[in-house]
């Protein structure tokens, strides 16, 4: 039982990180029909950029962190929208999705060639100690991840639902034409969504990199799981992405512990196929009307 709780907590922790990535994914999908296949690389890169800034300029960690995050937000928040999404969106969903695949290759190979092909240590912000909870030894780091991730998601929910700016953003996502008529600066709102997506990726990156180290290939699994989380939860729901992320994280952790480490990756995939077959709109999703 104690063992089970430990695996459960670990699963929720990684799941919360997948949820962060999945939420960014759905936000971007909602406002601009972008299926971002580079989402995993978005989570991989901030940690790499921070370490790179520290290495190149000899900065202290906090300054390198700020620089890395600023550069990331600029290029992969604003730049991604202006350079890749804006010129592509008129060609339709598919070419844009393929463009993000190309982007993911560029990011991955760029991190490998520009930074390192080896996994690098990333400093943890909380002590890596174990504490005893109900007889189970639980890593303090996992608890911190859960805390930070949920705080970030709570903050986001408050922003989207409780502030004027957030509501404008939501209106843009739901119906851009009407939003424009109501005087909402739609373009600026879309840009804001991309910045939020990048910011969520930064948070996820800072949380996951101390555990999985900073490595160019990390994005593959994170991206796949975030993607699955978004679909399982419901493609058009922030709430769904959260549920999907936690579910995938827990399923993965328990599968690794009790089924097979070799096939741990298969369990979320099977979950994905099952959801597509049984409830294609996702666990929390609404049915989308067919567009003619």
């Amino acid at each position, binding site marked *: 039982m104690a063992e089970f709780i430990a695996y459960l907590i670990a699963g929720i922790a990684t799941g919360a990180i997948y949820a962060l990535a999945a939420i960014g994914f759905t936000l971007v999908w909602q406002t601009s029909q972008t*299926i971002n*296949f580079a989402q995993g690389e978005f989570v991989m890169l901030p940690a790499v950029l921070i370490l790179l800034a520290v290495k190149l300029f000899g900065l202290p960690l906090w300054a390198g962190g700020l620089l890395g995050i600023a550069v990331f937000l600029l290029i992969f928040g604003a730049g991604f929208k202006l*350079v*890749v999404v804006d*010129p*592509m969106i008129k*060609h339709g*969903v*598919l*070419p844009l*999705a*393929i*463009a993000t*695949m*190309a*982007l*993911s*290759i*560029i990011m991955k*190979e*760029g991190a*490998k*060639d520009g930074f390192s092909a080896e996994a690098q240590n990333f400093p943890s912000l909380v002590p890596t100690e174990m504490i005893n909870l109900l007889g189970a030894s639980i890593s303090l780091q996992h608890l911190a991840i859960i805390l930070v991730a949920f705080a970030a998601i709570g903050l986001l929910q408050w922003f989207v639902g409780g502030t004027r700016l957030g509501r404008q953003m939501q209106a843009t996502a739901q119906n851009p034409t009407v939003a424009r008529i109501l005087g909402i600066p739609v373009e600026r709102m879309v840009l804001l969504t991309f910045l939020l997506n990048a910011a969520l990726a930064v948070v996820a990156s800072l949380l996951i990199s101390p555990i999985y180290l900073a490595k160019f290939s990390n994005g*593959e699994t994170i991206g*796949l799981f975030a*993607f*699955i989380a978004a*679909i399982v939860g419901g493609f058009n729901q922030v709430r769904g992405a959260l549920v999907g992320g936690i579910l995938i994280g827990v399923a993965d952790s328990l599968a690794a512990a009790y089924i097979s480490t*070799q*096939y741990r*990756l*298969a369990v979320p*995939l*099977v979950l*994905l*196929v099952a959801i*597509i*077959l049984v409830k*294609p709109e996702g666990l929390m999703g609404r049915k989308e009307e067919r567009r*003619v």
Partner: protein
Amino acid sequence: MSAPAVQNSAAPRRPARRIDVALAALVFGAMVLWFAPVGMGRYGTYVLSLWLVMSIGVMGLNLTLGYAGQSSLAQAAFMGLGAYAAAILTTRYGVSWYAAFALSGLLTFAVGLLLGFPALRVRTHYLAFVTLAFSTLIWLLIRNEQWLTGGVYGISNINRPDFFGIKLFGALEFHRFVVVVTLILSLKLWWLVRSPWGRAFTALRENPVRAASLGIDTRTYTLLAFAIGSAYGGFAGSLYAPLVEFIDPSPFSLSQSLFLLLMVVAGGSGYLFGPFVGALLGVVLPEWLRFAGSLYLIIFATIVLALLVICPQGVCGLIERGWHALRRKTGGAR
């Protein structure tokens, strides 16, 4: 009075002539490639053959993406299925390569149907998600089931087939064999695309709603396009195995599937010759970019990204656009 008559007689002739151009280009290209590797050495010949084998895989994906408008993220996994099926059947069970080739095609066709049926039942872009999952699952199977696939050590000593008693062990002989197989497969596809089937595929891509209202059973046609495309992946894989003579899981990963998809787009999706151009960029370009080392992937992806932004129809679309512009210019001058 004579002007409209000339126009009328010219109009129906043009499509017929254009088709012949495509056919002639295919046959001519095969003839050039038959003799091309003379004096190129073993490695150059190998790269040429690899280009053609990849082209077959990309061709299949082009049918799925370019003609039926579906994205499959599992073409490399289908190639893997074909390659492992051919390798296991020929090395372990002594099955002739030709039978293994046919079986690989059948296997991947069946798997395509099985995979596509539930996915397309839902909504079109779910095929991308299902194939994404499938591609990772296949990779896991190949890597983990050592008793069957040799795991990370792969399968080595895969024999090259005979051709009516002629041994194809040499690089040049096998290259010519690949040329013939590629020609047959691309002719088959050329025929398919201009048959009523192919017209239905194109109708699907252009406007699925209208196609459905014209009585085309869109789901069946989409499913068939995907299954046939997957079978081409299987064919490519079963040629790949004897070409390289050694297979391991790495060339059949998810990222390779994405890479193949990028090749389709780079060459020009929906163009008969797009796959050859795309595979040229994906397979031969790295050889030219040797000096850049591992940067070639970045260069390739950047080219694709730039192409997508400037001209989503790929290199073939770019050529077509340039050709039209040129014709308009000369027409205006006259």
